[in-house]
């Protein structure tokens, strides 16, 4: 083997405290080193060209560059040696800048340490082997889980790029939380006017296959070759026949079904269509309330349905789809605020959540846009908005800020003034978070133009009282830290800006996707700043609040970002895997299965080789962490480029007394 060693000055960064010429001289005494020199800037264009020439001139089999951190320039130099005809893995780096020259001024010690680090790199290189990426074909289709605004955006972008999309939405209609909103900040434009066209696009886009009222049952396989099992939950209505005319809903005798779409501030029929702009605009029977399904009586909807679409004994159906990538856009749920006893813990009828209030204000809502108190339907005069309910509250283990509550509360306050000009709106807040474009102006407008009174302080308790006129009132006790005194408001209705968390069932889905998640139900991104829409599992991407609290513009942006990542993944005809993965020597493997137990990616499967159990690594799933190599008792599975012998060579180079 012939090795070339290049010791970099890095201008003066290394040369200042390391005698690079001496390091090069010492390197020449190492086994298999046939060429060594120190250069001014190895990573520069001429520096790299110098390496290429040296490889050709001396017929080098491998190169060691002693310079900066491999995290910085390993890819650069790998491409350099590849240009010179070597395999890019016949290359090692010794970090003599961040780990040597920059952290000490003792020149003799630094030079000796640099020489030793070069020795480590040489010893490892002598045991490196060329590695080749394998090619795999890709199913150029993407699975989008969740039909909220982020999911819709991702699906539309991907479909526009010619990629087949399979969208799975748990509710019977897409639209997610945004579909429930009346208006959106900061422009107070009507939410469904913005969202509905996109929902229709989803329905009409030939590239998008929509499975509403369905959930992901299981995902197997690996990036480029996922097999997804989707459970199409029984809707008890044959959606091919149903025209969405709504006759069944009118005639349905069961009227006491809590209307989930309207956040249960009203009731609806056992068979209904969530809201007028629902996509798909198809009816669904709620089996827990439908008398026919529960007790076998009634059957009115079947009689009245013009197309005979009602199927009482419909069963769930499992459908299988092949996709190459997955985008999780499962959105959020409001946290369970009833734990906060000081706000009545859900027992006061007129203390409602912001979403419920939004449904109240919505024209397609149960109160057709009129604000009536749930308890007695009275038009409230004093409405109190309480911020950070279950957000920024370590006492209940909810330290994070939910991001967009300050903005929608300002919007709701403004809308309140619109609906009830002579109503008073109070907002108890700690800090107003209005970072976006035209955001702060919007909240200022709420205060100045609409006279919303912002009280800086937390609400300590809500006390229901009976007013002289017999009506129920709510004493909202709090403090005004700016004025430094206690404050009481006799409110008619209280709207809580409840914090958000991952939508229910997010944890289970994360396990299906084999991605990690925190205990608030938010999925963990690969890197919070640099790779927010990717996860540690290749081929699985995130978009929207499922990754963390964010408002609609950010969610839409992430939808497009995730779609862009998928497009990049599918841009090449074949998928290349990272060759730094594990390989099993079936002659030594006894099939004890320890590696299979510890692999974080389930990248190792048990196969049968002539009647004996053996382990086998799935090339595209293995990420090269090496856990299996450290676990296998007989060294039968070795992760390429970090095999036991390669690391042992470095240990032995240092510790051979």
């Amino acid at each position: 083997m012939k090795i070339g060693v290049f010791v970099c000055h890095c201008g003066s960064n290394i040369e200042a405290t390391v005698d690079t010429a001496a390091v090069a001289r010492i390197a020449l005494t190492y086994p298999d080193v046939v060429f060594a020199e120190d250069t001014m800037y190895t990573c520069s264009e001429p520096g790299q060209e110098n390496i290429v020439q040296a490889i050709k001139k001396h017929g080098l089999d491998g190169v060691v560059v002693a310079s900066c951190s491999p995290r910085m320039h390993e890819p650069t130099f790998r491409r350099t040696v590849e240009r010179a005809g070597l395999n890019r893995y016949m290359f090692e780096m010794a970090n003599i800048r961040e780990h040597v020259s920059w952290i000490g001024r003792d020149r003799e010690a630094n030079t000796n340490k640099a020489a030793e680090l070069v020795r480590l790199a040489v010893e490892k290189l002598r045991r490196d082997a060329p590695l080749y990426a394998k090619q795999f074909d890709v199913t150029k289709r993407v699975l989008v889980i969740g039909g909220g605004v982020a999911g819709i955006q991702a699906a539309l972008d991907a479909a526009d790029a010619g990629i087949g999309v399979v969208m799975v939405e748990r509710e019977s209609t897409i639209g997610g939380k945004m579909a429930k909103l009346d208006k959106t900040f900061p422009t107070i434009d009507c939410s469904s006017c913005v969202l509905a066209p996109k929902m229709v696009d989803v329905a009409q886009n030939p590239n998008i296959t929509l499975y509403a009222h369905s959930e992901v049952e299981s995902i197997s396989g690996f990036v480029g070759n996922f097999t997804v099992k989707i459970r199409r939950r029984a809707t008890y209505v044959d959606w091919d026949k149903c025209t969405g005319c709504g006759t069944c809903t009118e005639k349905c005798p069961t009227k006491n079904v809590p209307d989930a779409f309207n956040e249960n501030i009203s009731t609806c029929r056992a068979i209904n269509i969530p809201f007028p702009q629902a996509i798909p605009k198809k009816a669904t029977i709620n089996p827990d309330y439908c008398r026919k399904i529960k007790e076998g009586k009634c059957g009115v909807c079947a009689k009245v349905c013009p197309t005979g679409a009602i199927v009482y004994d419909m069963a769930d159906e499992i459908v299988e789809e092949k996709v190459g990538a997955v985008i999780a856009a499962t959105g959020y749920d409001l946290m369970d605020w009833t734990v906060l006893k000081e706000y009545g813990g859900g027992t006061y009828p007129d203390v409602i959540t912001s979403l419920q209030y939004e449904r109240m204000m919505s024209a397609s809502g149960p109160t057709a846009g009129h604000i009536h108190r749930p308890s007695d339907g009275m038009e409230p005069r004093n409405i109190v908005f309480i911020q950070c309910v279950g957000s920024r509250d370590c006492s209940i283990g909810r330290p994070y800020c939910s991001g967009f509550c300050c903005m929608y509360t300002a919007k709701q306050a403004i809308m309140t003034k619109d609906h009830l000009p002579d109503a008073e709106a109070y907002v108890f807040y700690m800090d107003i978070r209005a970072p976006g474009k035209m955001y702060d102006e919007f909240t200022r407008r709420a205060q100045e133009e609409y006279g919303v009174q912002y009280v800086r302080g937390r609400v300590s308790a809500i006390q229901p009282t009976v007013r002289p006129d017999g009506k129920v009132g709510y004493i909202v006790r709090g403090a005004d830290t700016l004025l430094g005194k206690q404050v009481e408001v006799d409110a008619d209705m209280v709207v809580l800006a409840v914090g958000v968390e991952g939508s229910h069932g997010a944890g289970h889905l994360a396990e299906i996707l084999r991605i990690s998640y925190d205990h608030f139900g938010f999925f963990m991104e690969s890197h919070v700043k640099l790779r927010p829409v990717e996860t540690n599992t290749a081929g699985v991407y995130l978009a929207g609040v499922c990754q963390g609290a964010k408002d609609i513009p950010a969610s839409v942006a992430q939808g497009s970002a995730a779609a862009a990542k998928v497009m990049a993944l599918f841009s090449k005809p074949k998928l290349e895997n990272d060759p730094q993965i594990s390989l099993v020597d079936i002659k030594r493997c006894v099939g004890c299965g320890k590696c299979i137990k510890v692999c974080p990616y389930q990248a190792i499967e048990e196969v049968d080789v002539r009647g004996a159990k053996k382990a086998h690594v799935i090339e595209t799933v293995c990420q090269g962490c090496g856990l299996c190599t450290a676990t296998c008792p007989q060294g039968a599975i070795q992760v390429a480029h970090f095999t036991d012998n390669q690391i042992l060579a470095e240990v032995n180079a240092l510790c051979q007394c």
Partner: protein
Amino acid sequence: MSVLAGKELRIVGFLCNWCSYGGADTAGTARAVQPTDLRIIRVPCSGRVNPLFVLKALMNGADGVLVSGCHPRDCHYSSGNFYARRRLELLKQFLPVIGIDPERFEYTWVSASEGQRWKDVVTNFTARIHALGPAPRWEDVPARYDMPVELLESLRPLGCGEHPALPELKQAIKDALAQGLEGVLGWKKGFDAIHAEPVFMTTPEEVDSLIWGPFNVQNLAVFLPQYKGRKIGVVVKGCDSKGVVELLSEGLISRDEVQIFGMGCNGTVNLSRILAKLPEGAAIESCACRGNKITVTAGGQTIEMTMAEVAQDKCRLCTKPNAVISDAFAGTPTTEPEAPQDGRLPGLRFLDSLSLEERMGFWKGQMERCIACHACRGACPMCVCRDHCVSDSRDPEWVTQEDTVQQKLFFQLIHAQHLAGRCTGCTECERACPMDIPVFALKQQFGRTIQKIFSYGAGLDVNATPPLLTYQVEETTIKERDLA
């Protein structure tokens, strides 16, 4: 290739590529001055660091070893550091038994952004190693040849008389053979009255040759993996049955291929102790066992000895004399004593009484006598990969063929590490050693550490997962130390 004499010590660092290596880079970028002793070896993940790398370094001249990975939950590979935390904590508490100061090894978590923290970690660790000074070298340590000879008090009365239920056991085996079992592993009389040897009984006559008593020392579970795919039976003492359970729980044998026959065990003998009482090399004419007395006539003399004098150490502290798993159990189970406060066998007790330097001397003396025949591996029921053991391999080459103390002791460390959380304490490794080296002490050190940290004993539950093959996100029982 050495450190600057007098100024530096040999400190080896294993840093995970994603977080700690990045943290070291950040420290560098921040020009955070640090001592130069540390040499960093980059690994993909702290989970990649096999504790044997650390042992290899510490046994061959490293004065200190530091492993650093991502903070728990930050691991780029999601669970690498969880496994690392368990393995490395276990290693740290194992080190004292071979005379290595546990302070010379530390593991910690440093993220890519914590440059300052990395500087403190390196500075503090280097200072700690300099305070400890250079590690003692195996060449300079004086060897000592004293042996652990303590006779432990037995928890229960040990007996050796004819077992009343033996005929019932034989009948159960004969019935099983009649129903198509290919054969049953048991013991029969060996080449003289005080030796028994394993036998694969296939015919009723052979079943009659089955013996049960103090000389049934071999753990027959060791043969089971060789009968894969064939329906056989095995007669087990309490300790042997734990070996069967561990093989089952790791899927190395399948439950439907093994029929287990058990009987109450009253203890087995340590043959070296019996032979020591007889004239050297005398031919054994006869041996009678009654109650707890063994009467041996050899070389013309008749010597009487009690089980208390000659029983094996493991039998004195045995709490599972009856098979923990069996298809057929003959006779009434013997009384199972309460778990002892101190389950250490003489080997570990003796080592605990020595200082670190003395322990190195002890192992040096013992390993000089080792002839590297690996009978300890051969007798171990858990060593299913003996045919291509990693210690005989050149890729990876953990051990060379040199017969130095370090190479021979390193084989013992590989064996102990592979048995961590799997060793059922049958002490066959120690009994099989022709040179009587107390190798079980190393396995028991791992065993008791695992019992202390994870309150887990191997070989008791077929569905249990050995502690090193799983992890907790929050390890309540591991008290981590922080260097920064």
